[in-house]
C-alpha cells in the first residue's frame, strides 16, 4: 500500500507518490530561464532557495505550457534526492492509499516515467515516477552541447 496525490493538468490525471510531496501551495511566481528546456523552464523562490520549476504539461504533452511569471492555481513541491521541484498544476485531489495490486500496467502512455494506471473518480490516472522522469531529463541535459 502506498499513498498517492492525484493531480490534474488540463484534462490529464496524474498520481504522484505522496512520499515525494513536501508541500502543496497556491499559485507560483516564477521566472523563465532563457537557456532552459520546456520541461524545466525556470526557477522559483521557495523556503529561501531557488528551486527548478517543472512543467508537467510539457512533459506529458497535455494542455498549455507554463508562461512566466504566473503559473497554475496550485503548486506541488516535490523532493527527489537532493532536488526539489515546484510543479504547477490545475488541481490537487485528496491523497489516496492504493494497493500495489490495484495499479495496472500503463496502457494510455508508454513513457518510462509512466509506471502504471489507476482509476481515480472515474478517470484513468497515470502513476508517474518522478525519479525516472527527472533522470531521463538529466541525461538529455548532460549530453546536450552548450
Amino acid at each position, binding site marked *: 500500500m502506498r499513498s498517492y496525490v492525484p493531480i490534474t493538468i488540463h484534462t490529464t490525471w496524474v498520481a504522484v507518490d505522496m512520499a515525494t510531496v513536501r508541500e502543496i501551495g497556491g499559485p507560483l*511566481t*516564477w*521566472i*523563465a*530561464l*532563457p*537557456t*532552459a*528546456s520546456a520541461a*524545466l523552464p*525556470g*526557477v*522559483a*523562490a521557495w523556503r*529561501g*532557495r*531557488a*528551486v*527548478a520549476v517543472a512543467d508537467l504539461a510539457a512533459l506529458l504533452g497535455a494542455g498549455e505550457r507554463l508562461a*512566466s*511569471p504566473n503559473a497554475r492555481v496550485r503548486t506541488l513541491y516535490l523532493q527527489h534526492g*537532493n*532536488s*526539489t*521541484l515546484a510543479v504547477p498544476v490545475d488541481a490537487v485531489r485528496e491523497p489516496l492509499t492504493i494497493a500495489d495490486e490495484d495499479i495496472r500496467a500503463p496502457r494510455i502512455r508508454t513513457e518510462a516515467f509512466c509506471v502504471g494506471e489507476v482509476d481515480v473518480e472515474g478517470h484513468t490516472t497515470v502513476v508517474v515516477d518522478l525519479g525516472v522522469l*527527472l533522470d531521463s531529463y*538529466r541525461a538529455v*541535459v*548532460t549530453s*546536450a552541447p*552548450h
Partner: protein
Amino acid sequence: MAARVALVHVDDPRVRWSVSAAQVVRILPAGDWRAPLIDVLAALGVAPGDDRHTRRVIIVRGGDGHELAVLAAGAIDIAEVDPADVLPLPDSVARASPQITAIVAFADHSLSLLLQPTAVLPPDDTVPGEELCPRRS
C-alpha cells in the same frame, strides 16, 4: 547581519535581469555609445526586443579587467538587497545556464535573473584587433 549586496536591476520587458554593481564601471545613454553592444538576453536565446523602451549601455568589467558594453533595454534601478535574497540556481538547471548565477527574490515576490555578462561572451570570443568596449586611457 551580512552586508547588503548592491545590484543594478534592468526591467527589460522580456525578462528582468540584474548584475552586480561592483562589476559596473558606468552607465550611459545608448545614443552616446558608438561601439558594438551585447544584448545579453538575445545572446541567451531570447528574441530581441523592440526599441520602444529606454535603452542604456552598461559597461561591466570582468575579473580579468576585460570590459563589455551591455545593452539595457528598460528602466534601470540600482538597489541593495539582502544576501539571503540572492538564491543560487539549483544544480538541475545551473549546468544549462552558466551565464545565470542566481535569482534575486524581491519583497513583492517578483524575481530577477542575476547574470554574469562576461560569461555570455567570453573574452576569447572577441575578434582579434576588435574590442567590444574600447579601453579608455
